[in-house]
């Protein structure tokens, strides 16, 4: 039973690779064809690929994104124009080529892709089986693959808040004995960068815990810092990523729109607050309330370098992201290395500390922007306590 941390690769995959190779951050990577052309993946060194999984990203099968089109097995490419009615005719061929690619690249396991669907109707199960699961399992069975097989499970926040959906999803997923794990992604169309819904977070924690309890390795993908709450579980992998579209699952990145054209405001991750705050607000606290700064800032060589530079960071510089990987890994490990009940107690204390620190920041007359505020913390604490009462309390 283990707890792993994986890089959710996005733009500038070399940041993740450097962080993994040289800073020893993360146990591996989840590669992203929408951000990495086939040739780039093929050129990666074995030390990276051997610890990585490749997410084939069939979520939006008719995506026109250029890098996805470099993969000949991608539905839009192999079908020469994806259509729901015709894809089953080439689904087996797509599966064969995709599995062959994953095997040839010697990744650490095989990922069975899935399509993103907004509603959990019987169609959800039928179509996932028809498009990918059945053909992939057939190919894998014929190939005699013995490495871990992960089934992608793209969900919505609404599915995780509904008991009957939970039941159906769990019963469905556990009906495939061939798989050893599930790669869960949750689309949550929320206005805030952090999860503030206790109901969603509780449902998410419960779902992952129950999957894990069914002898499945669970990779919770596209997580923001709520990954911290998953540390009181075992047999779970969490992810961290640089840009926001690797920390929140959305179909947007499979559309032509590209966040590179709308660069995000720089933010810095402050572990004691369990949140990212705007970089210019961080600078204000640092210069005007150094004692408070010392309580919320955990230094790393990367952040120190950025903070001491003469110019403000921009979105295409890795410093603050590599700082994030380093800090979050330390923080995650500090909880995950404990037995689950102790991890819960430590997380609970840390959340209370974060709430108190936010109160001190406000007391010191700093009003952080909406996303940098502590508005998520009470919901996190409530979800965590509920999880403890339901699953960990003797």
């Amino acid at each position, binding site marked *: 039973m283990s707890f792993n941390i994986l890089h959710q690769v996005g733009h500038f995959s070399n940041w993740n690779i450097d962080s993994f190779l040289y800073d020893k951050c993360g146990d591996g990577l989840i590669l992203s064809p929408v951000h990495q052309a086939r040739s780039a993946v093929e050129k990666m060194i074995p030390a990276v690929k051997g610890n990585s999984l490749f997410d084939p990203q069939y979520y939006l099968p008719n995506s026109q994104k250029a890098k996805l089109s470099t993969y000949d097995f991608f539905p839009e490419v192999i079908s020469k124009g994806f259509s729901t009615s015709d894809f089953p005719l080439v689904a087996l061929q797509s599966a064969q080529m995709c599995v062959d690619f994953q095997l040839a690249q010697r990744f650490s396991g095989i990922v069975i892709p899935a399509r993103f669907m907004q509603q959990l109707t019987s169609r959800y199960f039928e179509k996932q089986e028809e498009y990918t699961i*059945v053909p992939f399992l057939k190919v894998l069975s014929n190939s005699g693959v013995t490495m871990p097989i992960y089934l992608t499970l793209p969900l919505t926040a609404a599915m995780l808040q509904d008991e009957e959906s939970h039941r159906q999803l*769990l019963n469905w997923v556990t009906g495939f004995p061939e798989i050893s794990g599930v790669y869960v992604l949750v689309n949550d169309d929320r206005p805030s960068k952090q999860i503030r819904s206790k109901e969603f977070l509780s449902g998410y924690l419960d779902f992952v815990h129950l999957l894990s309890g069914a*002898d499945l390795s669970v990779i919770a993908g596209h997580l923001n810092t709520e990954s911290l709450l998953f540390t009181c579980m075992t047999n779970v992998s969490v992810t961290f990523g640089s840009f926001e579209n690797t920390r929140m699952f959305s179909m947007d990145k499979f559309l032509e729109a590209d966040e590179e054209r709308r660069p995000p405001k720089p933010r810095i991750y402050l572990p004691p607050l369990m949140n990212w705050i705007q970089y210019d607000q961080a600078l204000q606290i640092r210069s005007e309330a150094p004692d408070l700064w010392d309580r919320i800032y955990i230094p790393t060589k990367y952040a120190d370098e950025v903070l001491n530079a003469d110019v403000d960071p921009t979105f295409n510089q890795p410093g603050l992201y590599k700082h994030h990987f380093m800090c979050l890994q330390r923080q995650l490990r500090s909880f995950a290395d404990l037995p689950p009940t102790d991890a819960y107690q430590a997380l609970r204390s840390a959340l209370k500390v974060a709430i108190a620190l936010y109160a001190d920041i406000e007391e010191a007359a700093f009003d952080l922007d909406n996303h940098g505020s502590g508005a998520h913390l009470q919901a996190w604490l409530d979800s965590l306590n509920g999880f403890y009462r339901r699953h960990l309390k003797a």
Partner: protein
Amino acid sequence: MPIVDSLGFRLVLQHFFPAIAIESNLRPSGQRLVYFCSFAKSGAPASQVAWADWGKVVLKISEDLHPTVIARLEKEREILNSLNSTYFPRLLDHDVFTVDPVTELKLPNRLYVTLEERIEGQPLSDCRPRFVTEQSVGALLLEMVRGLTLLWDHPQRIIHRDLKPDNILIRENGHPVIIDLGIMRERGVAGLTGSHWQIGPCTPAYASPEQLKNEKRFITYGSDFFALGVIAYELLSGLNPFVESPTEPLEVVVDRALRFHPPTLHEIGRAGPEFSQVVQRMMSKEPYQRYRTVRELTSALVSLFEVE
């Protein structure tokens, strides 16, 4: 429409199988008729002379099945025969009759007939006293799992769906033989048995909740795990956990199987905590709460009942 054993029906059979000697009728009516019988050499047509060498056999007759269903059954019988295992009876022959051999008129309903090896043994339901200890029930369960694994692990992922003491024969040497695969099903394939029923095809006192709710998508070998759990519970406790009286209405049994959580075998003093926990997990109401893989269940049983 059920088929009924009658003199007239036996005469029809006699025309199909001139050398048949029917010994007894195991099911007077229902979806199928089941006879114990044997064949003589004398009087047999050339194609049936060799049947006398089979000795005692079981003759099963189903009526009015859709041709696609018969085709599927034939395929599944082939699968079963290919297993060539002592855990299952051998299928000796099968045929479809559509015309009355005397009148040469089309039969009102086509008859699907199978001849199976007759196992010398007793149904588990008749030899419960041999299985009252944790060790004997655990060993039986392990044997059952090993036998059924041949179905579950088959490329077509066959599920028995009707495991119960009547469908398990115990040979003299104590080894089980699994019979009556009449409603077995391939995972992921539309049912053979019709989909318009509120309750899926099963024996309610042993059926998993997903069968009772006819949630076809969730019927996997986990459904067979549930039935095996109920059988183990029944053997050790002396009572089926979902049946209070043999005369109570079916709906009551179904409702109990769906909602009632029986006390554990450990709580009623019939098993130690470890085996009790294994049986409890097998009998979980939701499939995801049961063992997810055959390997997981097997290793749980092996760790308790088999010394390496």
